[in-house]
């Protein structure tokens, strides 16, 4: 057992070394009045949380955040599943199309997001600025000011994440023995039924993991564009508003409370994931 713990030590040291203090700091600060304009540094209990929950703006931001996660995740899952189902069928085009589908994810996201942002929000002088501008005002007109920048992040996230999901689910489909599909073909009437009663249940662990991974990247992309544009995304989202409170307004304690308000959501996602993915029958072995 000593061997086992020794082997685990580097990973634990790395994770705890880098993350334990920041998480502790964030939690502690959310219970204080820390602010760059000389607030009380002492313990204030749940005041920051009470203030946050009483704000109508918080609930609006929370609504947008949940919508953003839900819409991008569903889109990535549907697109990914569709692409994976197309790619699993043999065809002469398959190797080439597989590489094409892999490409959005292979393109390093941290730099692609820069190109993507400038493509959707071009400077005034390019040949398609007028078209992009028209689109921007149309989207903002329907969804409210600042919506276009937000939609462009969501599109980027779906494009890149959908590619990852497709390849991930393809790996899942490859794991299903061909004989099972043959049995299924005898027992079911059409391909739609086969998908619902055979393919999807067998893919469940892969789907659960794909949803979870999609969750976590959705936030990273948002933060990237927020940084890139100097906070020009003015659509209220919990994460970016927390930065704004912390960096622009210096209200570090309130910012910490805002960031931590996402914890219940993430914890729920983890619980669901472990139930679906970390199946109990493994326990016996």
């Amino acid at each position: 057992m000593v061997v086992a713990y020794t082997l685990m030590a580097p990973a634990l040291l790395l994770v705890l070394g880098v993350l334990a203090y920041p998480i502790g700091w964030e939690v502690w600060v959310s219970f204080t009045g820390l602010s760059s304009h000389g607030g009380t540094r002492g313990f204030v209990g749940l005041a920051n949380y009470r203030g946050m929950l009483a704000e109508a703006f918080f609930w609006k931001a929370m609504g947008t955040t949940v919508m953003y996660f839900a819409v991008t995740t569903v889109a990535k899952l549907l697109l990914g599943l569709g692409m994976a189902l197309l790619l699993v069928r043999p065809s002469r085009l398959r190797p080439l199309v597989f590489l094409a589908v892999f490409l959005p994810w292979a393109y390093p996201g941290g730099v692609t997001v820069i190109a993507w942002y400038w493509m959707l929000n071009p400077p005034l002088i390019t040949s398609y600025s007028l078209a992009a501008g028209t689109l921007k005002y149309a989207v903002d007109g329907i969804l409210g000011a600042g919506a276009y920048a937000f939609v462009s992040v969501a599109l980027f996230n779906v494009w890149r994440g959908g590619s990852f999901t497709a390849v991930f689910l393809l790996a899942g489909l490859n794991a299903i023995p061909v004989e099972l599909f043959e049995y299924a073909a005898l027992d079911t009437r059409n391909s739609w039924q086969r998908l619902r009663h055979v393919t999807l249940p067998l893919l469940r662990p892969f789907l659960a993991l794909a949803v979870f991974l999609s969750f976590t990247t959705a936030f990273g992309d948002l933060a990237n564009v927020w940084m890139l544009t100097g906070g020009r995304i003015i659509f209220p989202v919990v994460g970016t508003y927390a930065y704004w409170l912390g960096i622009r307004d210096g209200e570090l304690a309130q910012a910490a409370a805002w960031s931590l308000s996402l914890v219940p959501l993430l914890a729920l996602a983890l619980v669901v994931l472990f139930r679906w993915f970390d199946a109990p029958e493994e326990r016996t072995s």
Partner: protein
Amino acid sequence: MSPGRGRWRHRVLLALIAMYSVFPIYFITVQSLKTPEEDVFGNPLWIADPTFENYTELFESGEARVRGFAILPRVPFVLWLANSAVVLAASVALTLACAVLAAYALGRLQPPGWRWWRRGLFATYAIPHTILFIPIYQVLLSLGLDDSPGALVLVYSTMALPFCLWLLSAYYHHLPREIEESALVEGASRLTAFVRIMLPMSRNVLVAAGLFTLGTVGQDFMLASIFLLDRNKQTVAAGLGVMDVSLEELVAVAGVNLAAIPVVILCALFARDYVRGLTAAMVEGA
């Protein structure tokens, strides 16, 4: 429905998803090959007169150049490329090393409570690093890693580690015990058995974990631009992100493409092993 019609429908759909996936890259590539004149007056989807000047511009030395009435600052792109390569390679290496050791311990040696150790470590994947950058910066300062590529390596390595650990430990867990035990019976030590047999067998899973790490840490732009302030120490993502893009958007976009080429080649070479590795890790006895 005849089988022929089904096959054609399948082909058309395949072509559509390929076009959808490649279109944004096609679009930025078209822009990056344009002259400034064509950027303004040309067709957004086509180039009449392709030029590599936006690409070669990235490799020119000197502080600035003059174009028309504008003075455009130059960027140390070659340095950025080298910095990115070092940071990414070191992050992938550190992630994989830590993940393999811990995964073997959790998947094979199974100390008491290993499931909870694994779940706990995996849960750290849900932590959005970008939101914690203030206290993370404090940790890096206390380690003396301010403005150093080591800071990024350390933080990046915690980003993909949870998933890699999960993947590898699931694989070692599923691998039939007899394989390792037969080696032990023949007198090999646990270490030799691991290095000679288990590690080569998990090659595809390692590839999967490695590419996943590359994709995950390659996604970051924010942490790189916060932790590395010195222009010459920045990575491509951080550097291009703070370029004065309003005048230089074509050069920035060309830089994006150039930085992507090596990563794309690497991914294309290992794409099949990546899929096989994911399958192998998730399926019993594969």
